[in-house]
């Protein structure tokens, strides 16, 4: 009994440890934990855990399940901090669980002012000290006590006007700031990235992703179209502590499909922007898709890798972009190093030596519809890729699907969507997809496991030689990272629309995947 009490005391003191900024910088030294949305600042989504490995993964089974009672797309990625799991769900819910049993410690339900039909998905939390941070569908940032789930402060990113701004991402904490971005690329907003003081909730800086007339880049917009130019910042960025650089993917310009009202390159839409996280000042940018008219935003993970580049170690940022090209940029200077297609694409002849696409004819949306691959959802999207330092491969979910893009001049009405017409999937060929392993140094595909449908789930890499991912029919699967052989699967019963994660508590490795309204956690039998 005494021993048990001591053990509980040890666990209790462990979970009381503060998550310092230093711990976040060194998140990969805590392989048992998952301290940020991406798992660490670089977003490699690899864990040096091998209790579950290629030889025993066939025995993996459901260990516990927690049902939120929510329906709709469950897009969260949980944090795990010293044995406690934290995650969010739609409708402003945050939950803390015992990560070994799934038993609830607390649940926070955000009180939306009456009449706000704020139903957007939510992708998760950030942690600093003993505080958690989340955004709400009505564009607020909320700080919660990690121990109780009690609200500490709330800060408004944008006033609530139905059908305009909203928020859905997991915040990123850097030093003493909580960094978030706004959503609403189809709603005629002007996008921005904000930093809030973690202590007080006061806004420290704002970076508008769309420059206005007179500002650098403002001349890439026709007339005053930049005022409603879109460029949301709806996914979490990455961070290099050595360079003190924040990397953030910017969304599509608006109106999405009708480009004539916004002639020009439309900076910084569909770009990677690199900011000083202390001030929000732009260091450099790279635009993947100038003057996009296919909704191919650049919200996909900007992963930070140190790789051998032509025989020398080089700090790079890589992104598998929605436009079907895999990009490698110098992380310090922004120099374009490589861009290669990783899926079928019918819009660019090639990229020039600066990485700018040279367009093919007849790829613009028009009144009769133009068929383009990839489709509007892109050759990949916000679902996370991963990188395995042992195989030196980059693993991503690839979507093979084409759309017919229509265009018509839209009328700007606040609160109404601002698409500029519609898109429709082609019917003469089936969509498909794959889990694909790429060599990031060459852009070559090493292997691909074909899925029946185009997927919406990301990937996780482990030192057990495994890649975990999910497909559109609800299968959570494990693959041999070296060969792509499917080693294990379970049908979770509904489409998977987020990325798996792993952690360790009490000497046992777990793999977690949200599915439907449930958190499913798997482990080997004891």
């Amino acid at each position: 009994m005494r021993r048990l009490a001591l053990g509980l005391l040890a666990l209790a003191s462990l979970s009381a440890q503060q998550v310092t900024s230093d711990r976040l910088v060194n998140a990969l030294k805590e392989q048992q934990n998952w301290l940020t949305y991406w798992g660490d600042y670089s977003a490699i989504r690899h864990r040096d855990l091998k209790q579950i490995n290629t030889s025993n993964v066939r025995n993996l089974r459901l260990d516990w399940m927690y049902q939120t009672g929510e329906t709709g797309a469950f897009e969260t990625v949980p944090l795990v901090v010293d044995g406690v799991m934290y995650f969010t769900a739609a409708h402003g819910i945050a939950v803390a669980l015992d990560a070994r049993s799934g038993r609830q410690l607390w649940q926070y339900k955000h009180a939306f002012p009456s009449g706000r039909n704020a139903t957007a998905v939510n992708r998760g939390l950030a942690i600093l000290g003993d505080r958690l941070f989340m955004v709400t569908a009505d564009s607020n940032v909320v700080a919660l006590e990690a121990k109780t789930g009690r609200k500490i402060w709330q800060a408004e990113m944008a006033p609530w006007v139905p059908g305009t701004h909203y928020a859905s991402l997991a915040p990123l904490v850097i030093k003493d700031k909580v960094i978030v971005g706004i959503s609403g690329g189809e709603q005629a907003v002007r996008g921005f990235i904000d930093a809030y003081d973690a202590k007080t909730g006061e806004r420290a800086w704002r970076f508008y992703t769309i420059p206005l007339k007179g500002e650098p880049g403002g001349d890439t917009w026709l007339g005053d179209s930049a005022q409603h130019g879109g460029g949301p910042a709806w996914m979490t960025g990455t961070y290099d502590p050595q360079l003190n650089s924040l990397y953030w993917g910017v969304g599509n310009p608006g109106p999405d499909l009708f480009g004539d009202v916004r002639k020009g390159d439309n900076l910084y839409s569909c770009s990677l922007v690199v900011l000083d996280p202390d001030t929000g000042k732009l260091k450099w940018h790279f635009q993947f898709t100038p003057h996009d008219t296919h909704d191919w935003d650049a919200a996909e993970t900007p992963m930070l890798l140190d790789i051998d580049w032509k025989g020398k170690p080089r700090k790079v940022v890589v992104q598998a972009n929605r436009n079907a090209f895999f990009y490698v940029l110098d992380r310090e200077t922004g120099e374009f190093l490589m861009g290669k297609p990783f899926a079928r694409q019918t819009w660019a002849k090639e990229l020039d030596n600066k990485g700018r696409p040279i367009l093919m004819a007849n790829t613009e949306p028009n009144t009769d519809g133009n068929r383009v691959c990839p489709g509007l959802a892109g050759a990949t999207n916000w679902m996370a890729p991963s990188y395995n330092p042992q195989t030196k491969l980059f693993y991503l979910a690839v979507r093979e699907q084409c759309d017919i893009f229509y265009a018509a001049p839209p009328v700007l009405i606040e609160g109404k969507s601002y698409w500029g017409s519609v898109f429709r999937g082609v019917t003469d060929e089936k969509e498909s997809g794959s889990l694909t392993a790429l060599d990031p140094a060459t852009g070559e595909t090493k292997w691909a496991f074909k899925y029946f449908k185009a997927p919406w789930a990301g990937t996780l890499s482990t030192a057990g030689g495994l890649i975990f991912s999910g497909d559109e029919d609800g299968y959570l699967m494990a693959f041999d990272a070296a060969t792509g052989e499917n080693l294990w699967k379970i049908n979770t019963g509904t489409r998977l629309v987020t990325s798996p994660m792993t952690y360790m508590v009490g000497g046992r490795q777990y793999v977690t995947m949200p599915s439907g309204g449930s958190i499913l956690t798997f482990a080997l039998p004891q």
Partner: protein
Amino acid sequence: MKLLPVAVALLFPFFISAQNGSEQDVEQGRALFRSNCAFCHGLTAGGGRGPSLISAKLVRGSTNDDIKNIIRSGVPGTSMPSFENIEKDDLDKLVRYIRHLGGSNVISVPVNGDADAGKRVYGRSGCAGCHRIGDEGSNFGPDLSRVGSGRSSDYIHQSIVEPSADIPAEYEGVTLFTKDGKKITGVRVNEDTFTVQLRLGNDRFALFNKSELKEVIYPKQSLMPAYKTLPAKDLQNLLAYLDSLRGQQTSGADAIKTKGIK
């Protein structure tokens, strides 16, 4: 995009906004129609997978509000989806365009031919071997209980003589070759990365893990034979019979009746 655009688009197609003004409205209604409705109802609304909107008979109310309700809510039990996110202005323009097509009193134009004789053609051609009308026939092919209200006669004609021209996704064929050498063809009921489920001609399911299969093939041809040699008169009578099928044969068909274009 922000959530899952393909799925969102399928369920809630997006609409362009437009300006006021009557003639302009019709034009804008036409643009809305082309990008949202033409896929099923044809570029000029003459029908296709969906009924003609020029000659359709509106059996459960013909007011503008009735038509708007159909567009907003869809028609359960048919392939007409709900366009519930359509803006009010756009809905008005669409209805104005649809009215403009057929005038304010849309009249059903019956297909020439002898429906009773057509019923006999249906019987002796073996159609019931694959199709179902009311409670009779097979579930292998599409249920024809209300085919006259859901499909234009041109489309039905094409489906008889050239069935491969347009195969609805829910009746796509699939051919499997098992590892033990069997070949199995049926209607693909469901499929995923690891499994496939078929409906066979004998109305049974065939359920497989793909690990048991050597190959899965998707024939471009319809599972329905092309009735190209049917005498012209028989074909016309058959068309008249099929056109007369409006879902009133049985209580089962009544149950799926909803107000709207029939």
